[in-house]
């Protein structure tokens, strides 16, 4: 069906097609921007899809106030570079209660800041389509995900309401009050993402590259002491050469020891790696099937 195109070219064209279809058939689309590498690729694709126009939707960061400092810096830079409007939402309830992973645990922290915060932001702005950077290869249960996922007015994901997706012909229609989560990177793998970042020279948060950073060990996971809010319980942070395979809230994101200070070095380590990407995410430790449950509750 296709001539002379490489797999990355085909993936790129498919993602651009998805982005354009969504925009053409939505009243108020938004891109959920989490500042990680997948978001970086998704933003880059959006700029390609609508060039020479600026992508006709804002970026939304559902903030927890616990991201790495370097992530906040990257967020501001990318919003400025792309010329897109940046919306930042912090759940006011969490701000008031001072919700944090240390006192309230990762489950409460994630649910209140991210899941509830996302719903608040979508309701507040009345967005009817939200782009997310999830990929089908991230874990076994995501393999069956649709590219276009319908959510009820309460943001719930009803497994029985999901639509078959045929050809490249996407049914983007919604009923009153329903919204849609759209995943343009569905068919990308982790290697595809890295390879594309390398080919396109897409800026990424420096935390993905190894550098000496102050870390403490918690339950066998290396946690970076990114600011003074981290309770040390008598531990002394050590400088170790580490990098991060995924980025989130710094107290919930495990570092890996590494000497890969270049992008190619990181890709090389990844290719030779023997553990899967999600292992560094503390959120998954809550138990098998927890992703599925979070999704039904409205988590991305």
């Amino acid at each position, binding site marked *: *069906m*296709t*001539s*002379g*195109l*490489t*797999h*990355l*070219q*085909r*993936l790129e*064209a*498919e993602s*651009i*097609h998805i982005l*354009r*279809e969504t925009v*053409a058939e939505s009243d108020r689309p938004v891109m959920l921007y989490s500042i990680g590498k997948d978001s970086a690729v998704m933003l880059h694709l959006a*700029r*390609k*899809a*609508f*060039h*020479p*126009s*600026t992508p006709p939707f804002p970026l939304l960061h559902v903030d927890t106030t616990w991201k790495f400092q370097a992530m906040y810096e990257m967020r501001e830079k990318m919003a400025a570079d792309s010329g897109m409007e940046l919306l930042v939402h912090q759940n006011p309830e969490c701000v008031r209660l001072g919700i944090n992973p240390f006192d309230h645990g990762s489950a409460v922290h994630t649910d209140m800041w991210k899941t509830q915060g996302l719903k608040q932001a979508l309701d507040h702005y009345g967005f009817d389509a939200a782009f997310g950077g999830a990929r*089908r*290869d991230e874990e*076994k*249960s995501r*393999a*069956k995900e649709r590219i276009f996922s319908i959510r009820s007015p309460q943001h719930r994901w009803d*497994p*029985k309401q*999901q*639509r*078959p*997706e*045929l*050809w*490249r*012909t996407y*049914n983007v*229609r*919604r*009923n009153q009050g329903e919204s849609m989560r759209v995943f343009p990177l569905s*068919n990308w*793998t982790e290697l*595809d993402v890295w*390879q594309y970042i390398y*080919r396109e020279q897409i800026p990424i948060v420096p935390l993905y590259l190894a550098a000496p950073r102050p870390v403490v060990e918690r339950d066998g996971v290396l946690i970076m002491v990114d600011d003074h809010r981290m309770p040390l319980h008598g531990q002394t942070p050590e400088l170790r050469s580490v990098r991060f395979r995924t980025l989130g809230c710094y107290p919930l994101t495990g570092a890996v020891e590494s000497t890969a200070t270049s992008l*190619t070095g990181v*890709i*090389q380590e990844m*290719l*030779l790696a*023997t*553990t*899967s990407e999600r*292992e560094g995410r503390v959120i998954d430790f809550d138990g098998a099937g927890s992703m599925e449950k979070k999704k039904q509750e409205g988590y991305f």
Partner: protein
Amino acid sequence: MAMAQEPLMATDIEAYLRAHEHKRLLRFITCGSVDDGKSTLIGRLLYESHLVFDDHLAALEEDSRQVGTQGGDLDFALLVDGLAAEREQGITIDVAYRFFATEKKKFIVADTPGHEQYTRNMVTGASTADAAVILIDARKGVLTQTRRHSFLVSLLGIEHVVVAVNKLDLVGYSQQVFDAIEAEYRAFAGEIGLSDITCIPLSALRGINVIEASPDTPWYHGPTLLAHLEAIDVEDRPGRTPFRMPVQWVNRPDLDFRGFSGLIVGGSVRPGDSVRALPSGRTSTVSRLSTFDGDLDMAVAGQSVTVVLDDEIDVSRGDVLCSDDQPAEIADQFEAHLVWMDDHEMLPGRPYLIKLGTSLVGATFSQPKYKVNVNTMEHLAARTLELNEIGVCTVSTDRMVPFDPYVSNRDTGGFVIIDRMTNATVGAGMLHFSLRRSQNVHWQALEVDLAARNTMMGHGSGVVWFTGISGAGKSTIANRTEQLLHAHGVHTYLLDGDNVRHGLNRDLGFTELDRIENIRRVAEVARLMADAGLVVLVSFISPFRAERRLARELAGEGRFCEVHVDTSLEDAETRDRKGLYRKARRGELANFTGIDSPYEAPAAPELHIETNACTPEQAAEELLLQLRRMGMVS
């Protein structure tokens, strides 16, 4: 890392990345039931191509010990299963997608689980596949399901078929068994139009001929499964398909730039090419192919671009840019295969939406010419299509649409069917040919009259007049009726007493004269709208027979349906949702119907609804029947 001995990745990562950047992509579907070893085959491909990480592998070892079927050996099927559990939770799984890569290619595997829903699932998975791997259990040979899978593969236009004759270890690696299966399959496949067929003897469980050629089948000289998948050529040979680009989005950042964004789904295009926009038929010349990475000299099928034309011809979303000398056809009536995917059966004549390329149009389907028994390929008589049924129907669209026969181009010949009410995807279709060639049709200068408008709307028109005392339930029933009519594709408008008084009749009070003028104006507006082709629902207390007679006369006999929404004053007053009766009783509202102004009940309404005897839904259904009897709705 069992297969991928890639020292390059360790020694020279840049060279490795350069090599991998030029990989091609192949999407394939696997067809077979759980018993055929499909999951085992996919699991092995993932495992052997280094896509199983240690933490997954540890889980696999644990699972294999606990629930595996391989006596403690690694059970590869467990890598991709887990779908059964999801099914128990009630999650609809149509297709699961898996990814793996070799040095030459990246693969996307569409895996369709389960027996029930098989047609729907497999059609979905096959719609994006370039190749199909059909599994046959060597002990069982070509079965009914093999025929079903092959028919669907052929229907969806997959060119490359690989027949994996699996479990060969269980028949002693017998060449005789393999040859017999191959001969039988080829004979059958020829009948249904499959031509590019490769048969491979293998054992997914033992890894025989999956990645590496096996000494156990010395009589087999063909490629291994993976080598064959790597070699499949899905290139669009130059000139094989003419240029097609459905327009997704008109890109207009400022007055100086106007481009048409879309994914090229056929052929190629260069600046200077003459193109035609369909359905308008206007032609222009490509001046630029604009992308973020600079202008292109040429763009080909599979690329997303923005086309800038020389002159300002009118092009919008849903149009298709085509090569000028080989344009797509345009038509509004087609023959097509439909695959039904919804629990509610297809209703011939009911308006649906179809999405073809980027255009969304209204469409109706005829009663099927026949449906196909997917196991025997027999043609059977049918009045409708139910879930998982496939049939041939006439498709009529509400406007001209550009298309190619599905066999020439999947993207401009395949469409999805959408329910107008729920917006669910209820089916898919593949266009074969137009039944009325638009090129031969010369439009007659029609006198646009009521009949012409009704023809275009697809239904009759008229006025439905709800009368009854305040609080009887007129608006509720009128609203229900409108929803129901809308669901049946009837164009409607609801004129509500309260709302009209905010606008058109803002200047009128509640004296008797004003009330008559109020009704007269509403009756006139209703008549105009009915003339324009709408079914107009009027919800007004309208207490006086004379005024209602006026409205009836304006609409014309046979086009006026009077509905008496009847409730006792006592009931209405007890409910009194708007608090009007209380006000009237206190003397704060003068001329209130039922209190100090009479209500003249209709003597012979077309429909009499007693609201304590039925629900609003029942009333709406009853009314729909009445409108059918009157011919306002078909």
